[in-house]
């Protein structure tokens, strides 16, 4: 009876081997895993060594209070005028929570100290967005914070101290404010203010996903709100800026929308600043300045209200930059995971076309709900690159990481990084950038600033209910660079809205002095240029915002920070 036993054994072995070799059915949805670092990473997480120990308080996770999901912003600005960028991070725990905003002063290069206590900016609340600008012309950057149901203006009193002047300044906004920006819309030399409002939220209204699971309300649950425009009327005898609410008379109050992102720039090429508002799940608004204190909404005609398929998407963060080197600014807006982020290329002047598919941005290695975003030349090769901070707003598959609680793990996604080639096409570098993209997070705000003044733009990202992170740009094989600050002596500060063009290596690189972009954030007011192989630049041209005067400054060696003052350059007439 040995043979049958052999046969039996053989059959069993064959069966077992077959079972072992059987392929999986592949029907289970898989959770994306973090890819191993590969290639040359562009960013290094320096949060801890920089002394930035900020954890965002979004309030009680179980409440599904809609403002939690929107997150809070941050600002990179030099609060004390010592030439080093400082950082303000906002909290969203609500009034009485004790979770206060924190101001971190950069005391020596790369090292931040918490100077919140007594700064005046250390207050709690549902703090959303931040805008930075010198509203009273004293040469010190002032701070505006938007809130769920309010806003607050703080005048910089020097040495890192701020004073709440909201009421005296005549500012009021009862709605849910999100992003905000300072701009000089009437070119009178004083910074005016636009505040974007989100939805007419009802805090007593519960929302559920189609499965019945509790979740954050979608924006369509509530009607959108109109943005607000405040005109700077000048300062009173105590040096306090006074604002007048011109929302209705300017026309900006005529249309409501669930606004989240804002970007002020000259979109139609007439030399006057316009206002783009990214609306969440509704057509975007492009308020074109009519040069008489009023605005007309022209997003549809100019091609930026909807995507190329005619659909309104969930607009969140906004970035502006010339991605194809034609000298015209292009527009990038972040959207939901289920949509694509959209790149509108400007062609011809004043008109835009959805070129997302052609840019290869739709072929990303992974998708996400984009919030903060930045178009910058991180590797200084002369072509703008793109960073996108991601995190869901509706419950998705769990993406646990040690920094996230159980609640936020269902909203975490990985960030993205794309390298531009200067022709409007992008290559996904996310898998090879683990510090920025490797760990799922619920990212919201994204501010850029060259905090170590090495000419390489660094990133600061905020997350809902998690840690804020500082990422130092360590891109290898960086090209040459220039960091330009455009100052207007009459304003005693940065010339917001100035257009800066650098000529180097036979190319022209254009940038805008505009710290208010991305999402809920304020970034470095300087303009960062990557010059590629050009070790010198031929000249810099600045078109100043108030009188549109054009000045040319002489060239020189690259790889340095330049401060250009209005009046010091060679005047070359005006530009419309």
């Amino acid at each position, binding site marked *: 009876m040995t043979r049958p036993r052999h*046969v039996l054994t053989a059959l069993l072995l064959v069966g077992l081997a077959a079972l072992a070799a059987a392929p999986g059915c592949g029907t289970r949805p898989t959770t994306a895993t973090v890819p191993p670092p590969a290639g040359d990473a562009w960013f290094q997480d320096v949060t801890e060594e920089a002394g930035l120990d900020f954890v965002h308080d979004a309030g009680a996770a179980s409440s599904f209070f809609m403002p939690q999901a929107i997150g809070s912003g941050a600002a990179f600005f030099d609060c004390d005028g010592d030439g080093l960028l400082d950082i303000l991070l906002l909290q969203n725990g609500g009034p009485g929570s004790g979770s206060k905003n924190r101001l971190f002063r950069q005391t020596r290069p790369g090292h931040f100290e918490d100077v919140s206590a007594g700064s005046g900016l250390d207050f709690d609340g549902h703090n959303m967005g931040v805008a930075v600008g010198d509203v009273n012309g004293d040469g010190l950057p002032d701070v505006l914070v938007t809130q769920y149901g309010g806003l607050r203006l703080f005048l910089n009193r020097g040495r890192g101290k701020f004073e709440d002047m909201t009421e005296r300044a005549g500012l009021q906004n009862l709605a849910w404010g999100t992003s905000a920006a300072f701009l000089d819309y009437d070119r009178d030399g004083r910074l005016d203010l636009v505040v974007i409002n989100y939805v007419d939220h009802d805090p007593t209204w519960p929302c559920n996903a189609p499965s019945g699971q509790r979740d954050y309300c979608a924006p369509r649950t509530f009607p959108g709100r109109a943005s607000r425009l405040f005109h700077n009327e000048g300062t009173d005898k105590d040096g306090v800026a006074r604002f007048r609410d011109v929302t209705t008379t300017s026309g900006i109050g005529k249309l409501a929308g669930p606004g989240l992102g804002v970007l002020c720039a000259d979109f139609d090429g007439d030399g006057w600043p316009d206002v783009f508002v990214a609306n969440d799940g509704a057509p975007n608004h492009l308020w074109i300045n009519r040069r008489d204190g009023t605005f007309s909404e022209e997003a549809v005609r100019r091609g930026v209200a909807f995507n190329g398929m005619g659909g309104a998407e969930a607009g969140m963060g906004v970035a502006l930059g010339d991605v194809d080197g034609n000298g015209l600014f292009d527009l990038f807006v972040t959207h939901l995971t289920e949509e694509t982020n959209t790149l509108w290329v400007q062609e011809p002047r004043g008109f835009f076309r959805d070129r997302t598919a052609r840019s290869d941005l739709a072929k990303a290695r992974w998708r996400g709900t984009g919030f903060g975003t930045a178009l910058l030349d991180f590797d200084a090769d002369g072509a703008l690159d793109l960073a996108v901070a991601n995190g869901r707003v509706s419950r998705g598959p769990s993406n646990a990481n040690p920094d996230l609680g159980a609640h936020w793990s269902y909203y975490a996604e990985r960030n993205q990084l794309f390298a531009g080639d200067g022709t409007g096409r992008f290559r996904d570098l996310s898998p090879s950038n683990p510090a920025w993209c490797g760990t799922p997070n619920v990212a919201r705000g994204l501010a850029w600033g060259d905090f170590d003044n090495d000419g390489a733009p660094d990133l600061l990202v905020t997350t809902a209910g998690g840690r804020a992170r500082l990422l130092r740009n360590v891109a290898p094989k960086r090209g040459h660079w220039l960091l330009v600050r455009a100052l207007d002596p009459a304003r005693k500060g940065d010339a917001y809205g100035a257009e800066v063009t650098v000529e180097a290596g036979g190319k022209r690189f254009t940038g805008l002095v505009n710290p208010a972009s991305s999402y809920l954030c304020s970034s470095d007011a300087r303009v960062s240029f990557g010059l590629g192989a050009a070790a010198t630049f031929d000249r810099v041209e600045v078109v100043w915002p108030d009188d549109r005067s054009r000045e040319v400054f002489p060239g020189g060696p690259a790889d340095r920070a330049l401060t250009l003052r209005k009046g010091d350059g060679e005047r070359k007439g005006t530009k419309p």
Partner: protein
Amino acid sequence: MTPRRLVLRVLLGLLVAASLAGGAWYGWHWHTRPLPPSVDLEGADAAVVSAVDAALTRVKREPYTLAAWDDLGKLLRASDYRAEAAACFAVAERLDPAEPRWPYLRGEALATNGDAEAALAPLRRAAALCVGPHADDVVPHLRLGEVLLAQGQIDEAEEQLSQAREADPSNPNVLLNLALVAFARDDLTTSRTLAERARRSPLTQRRACVHLAAVCQRLGDETAAADYSRRLASLPTDPAWPDPYVLECLQRAVGQAGRFRYVEGREAQGRLAEAVAVQREIAKEAPDARVFVGLARNLSQLGDHAGAEEAARSALSLVPDNVQALYLLSKSLWAQGEGAEARKEPDAARGRFEAAIVAARQALARKPDHALAHMLLGLSLKRLEKRDEAIAALRLAVQCAPELPDPHLHLGEALAEAGQVAEARTHLKHAFELARPDDPRPRAALERYNDR
């Protein structure tokens, strides 16, 4: 060994071999059976949990039964578990490879979940299976064409959309997408012609207007561009194009959320009476503040203010601080006060206005930027001849929502009645600019006070 024993041994050996082969086959079959996706049901509606659990149990028990995967896939798609639904439709396709609906539904779920690249392969398979003249055959070609277009694959998109056009030459969605194809090729004239045809359909009129505004601008026809932009303001959102396959899925919806979606659909189409009927059913079966608030809103719009009051009070009995219920209560009381005034019942009217004020103030205590609650407060105070308080409340209404015409209108009227005609005119002009063109009230008010 005798021949008989030998035969017996051979037979026994064959029996053992057959049993083992059968066992191995069964083991292989069991091991490679399609497995259902894992579904995160934590916190889901009890009806959804129960239905999904039952469907999951069935596919585990009958892993090779098409109907089981069909049911689970559609149930998951209806409950918005799109990735999980796509996994089920993939199994259904393996079991029934000649049927286009499975790869189509898989592709549709992936595409609408944002995974357009993954959606392309199943959609291509579905389109390849749909070559007949039946109207439903248009659907896979149209969906595939749309996804390809969004991905920038213009040539293949045009090919698919042309096939769809052959099957249904007047399909407005096909025409509009072909207009987008032409635009991508800078053939602006063709794009305009096709989009103008699509504009005639209520299914695509809004998207067509959006596209025409951009095309006309590029063609240099600024007047037409401005005209199309203006028209958009009065056009409703285009409905999703009728997709019979997806509708099959949505019919499988269970739980409150599915019924809420049904109600939303009826409301969007202006079929309020039908929405009210379903809301009453839901309210009876499972009382919920949101249902009562929806009911109050619809009854108010239908002019049944007593019914709206009752529904709002029912909502408040469940959630006493519900802002929308308080606002709708105030609104219904104010409307009833107006009615009593018209019937010359001053005491009844006064009582209603006073009650409306209380409810509006309660809403504002919970939501200080509720523009319409400020407005109702102002209107009720005005009826009680508390003019200054009324104007203050109406100013706050305008401050909270400068984009709404009614607060401007009522503030303008209140100011005019108080003798502040210049400021009144400003607000009446704003009301006129913001109101729909067919709203006669702001113009009438302006004419009335311009004469003074």
